C-alpha cells in the first residue's frame, strides 16, 4: 500500500531548528544593515547637494550618540557579513595551479590582505 506521509518544514520557524541555519540567517540579516547604510550615504549626498549648512547638519547628526551607535552596529554587521563570505570563497572560486588546487587558506588570506590594503588606503586618504 502506497500512502507516503509528508512532513512539511515550517515556513517561518525553520531556521530556528539548527545552529547552522541560525548562522546562515545571521549572515543574511547582516546585509540589511549594509542596505540601511547605503540609504544613509544617499541621504548624505542629498544634504550635500542642498548646501554647506545642510551638509554640516548631516555631519552633526552622524556625530550624535545615535549616529555613532548606528555606525558601530553597521560596522560590526558588515565585518561579520564580509568575513563570512570571505571564508567560503575557496568553495566558490577554487583555483588550480598545475596539478594542484591552491590551498583554501591562501584564497581566504588574499581576501583579508586586499581588505587590509584597501582599508589602509581609505584611512590615509581620509586623514
Amino acid at each position, binding site marked *: 500500500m502506497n500512502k507516503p506521509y509528508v512532513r512539511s*518544514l515550517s515556513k517561518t520557524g525553520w531556521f530556528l531548528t539548527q545552529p547552522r541555519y541560525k548562522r546562515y540567517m545571521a549572515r543574511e540579516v547582516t546585509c540589511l544593515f549594509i542596505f540601511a547604510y547605503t540609504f544613509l550615504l544617499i541621504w548624505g549626498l542629498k544634504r550635500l547637494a542642498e548646501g554647506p549648512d545642510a551638509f554640516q547638519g548631516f555631519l552633526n547628526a552622524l556625530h550624535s550618540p545615535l549616529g555613532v551607535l548606528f555606525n558601530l552596529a553597521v560596522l560590526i554587521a558588515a565585518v561579520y557579513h564580509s568575513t563570512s563570505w570571505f571564508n*567560503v570563497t575557496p568553495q566558490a572560486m577554487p583555483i588550480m595551479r598545475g596539478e594542484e588546487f591552491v590551498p583554501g587558506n591562501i584564497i581566504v588570506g588574499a581576501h583579508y590582505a586586499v581588505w587590509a590594503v584597501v582599508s589602509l588606503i581609505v584611512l590615509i586618504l581620509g586623514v
Partner: protein
Amino acid sequence: MSERQIQLEVLRYNPETDSEPRYQSYSVPCLNEWVVLDALNYVKDNLDPTLSYRWSCHMAVCGSCGMMINGEPKLACKAFIHEYTDQIRVDPLANFPIERDLVTSVEDFITKLASVKPYLIPKSDQPVSAGEFKQTPAELKKFKQYTLCINCMLCYAACPQYGLVPEFLGPAAISMAHRYNQDSRDGGRDERQEVIASDEGVWECSFVGACSEVCPKHVDPAGALQQVKVASTIDWYKEHLMPWMKK
C-alpha cells in the same frame, strides 16, 4: 568490550494502519564500537522484526542508510554509538515523504538526478578503434571529488531550500551535473545547462552550506553549486553583452 544500554527512539509509520507517525522506544544493549545501524539491526533481529529501514554495505559506500540521528542527517553506518548519550532519536531522512518507518520515498531525487544527464556525453562520436579518451591527472583532479557522491541524499535532508521549495533540483543532482561539465572528455554542458540554470535549478540555492557540512564523502556540493552559478552568470553576460560570441 564495554556495553551500554541505549534508549533508541525510532519514528514508526505504518501506511496501512497509521494516520501519522509516532515514536517507539527500544532498549538496546550496545557495544561501544557499534554504530546506530548495528543498534537498528539488533532491534530488527531481537526485539521487533516489523521495523523497516534501508541498509546494505555497512561501510559508507552504498548510501542506503541515510537517516536523521538526533535531528542530524547521518549515515547510520557511520554514526558511532560512543559519540552519543544514552538516548538516541532516529527519524527518517528529513524533506522526503515517509513510505514506512525509516524508509523514505526517493523517486523525486532519482527523477532529478536523471534529468541532469549524469553521464559522459562525448564532444563527438568516435569509433572504438580510435582508442580511449585520454585525460591528464590535473584534468581528473578538477572533478574527482564530485565523483565520490554516493547518492545518499543527506544533502537534500540538510537543505532547507529543498524543504521549502520541493521543486528545487537540489545539491547532489547539480553537483553531479557539475562533475560531468568539468570533465575534459565531456561535451554535454549545453544540454545540462537548460535544467541546472533554470529557476528550479541552481538559482534556488542561497548557499546555506548545510549540504557540504553533512556530506559523508566530502563532496562539497555547496561549492559545486556556487561554481555553477559563477559559470551561468558568465554565460549570461556573454549572451547579453557579447551576442556575437554566441555560437
